[in-house]
């Protein structure tokens, strides 16, 4: 079983709402990542973090922000949701050093 948890699993919200997607891992991994993925499609890196108080933007600008106050927690916030944000959001973590990523099950977001 994966030790990385994402909540909520599904979310339907209205345009303009502020939302936070939660991601927590119990493996003590320093590196964490957020990806956006349409079903069965390629993964786009949104944000990543190499440790507490470290955050960087990825290749896809999705008008979101992240924080990393604790090693185990890496929440993603959309300040003003739009229909174009409708997608699946995947969180991942790794020890680094070619250990591979562990992914969460994702949050399926629909903005109406």
């Amino acid at each position: 079983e994966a030790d990385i948890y994402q909540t909520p699993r599904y979310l339907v919200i209205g345009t303009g709402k502020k939302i936070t997607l939660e991601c927590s891992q119990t493996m003590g991994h320093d590196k964490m990542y957020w990806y956006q993925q349409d079903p069965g499609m390629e993964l786009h890196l949104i944000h990543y973090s190499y440790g507490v108080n470290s955050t960087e933007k990825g290749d896809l600008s999705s008008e979101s922000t992240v924080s990393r106050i604790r090693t185990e927690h890496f929440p993603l916030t959309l300040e003003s949701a739009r229909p174009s944000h409708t997608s699946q959001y995947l969180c991942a973590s790794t020890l680094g050093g070619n250990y591979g990523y562990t992914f969460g099950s994702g949050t399926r977001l629909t903005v109406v």
Partner: protein
Amino acid sequence: QQQVKQSPQSLIVQKGGISIINCAYENTAFDYFPWYQQFPGKGPALLIAIRPDVSEKKEGRFTISFNKSAKQFSLHIMDSQPGDSATYFCAAENSNSGYALNFGKGTSLLVTP
């Protein structure tokens, strides 16, 4: 810019056949090449990975073949089963860059009974 190119986009194989998915890269600094398997509604899961100092790695029915000079690597699924039907992603990483994995666009595999 897509740093890892993956083909085919979709693949249909009969049960018992061999599934082959190919990936190519340009950045010679990449030193880690994992494959991920993703079922609908789930996050990708690490399937098998290889480093460029070996040409082949086998785990059960899954084999990675790696050609460093051609900058290509491929996943072979032997004796393909309907339960292997999933989306497969190749990826590449430069462990010295401090950056994230670069994923291919994915291959949707369907194994028919």
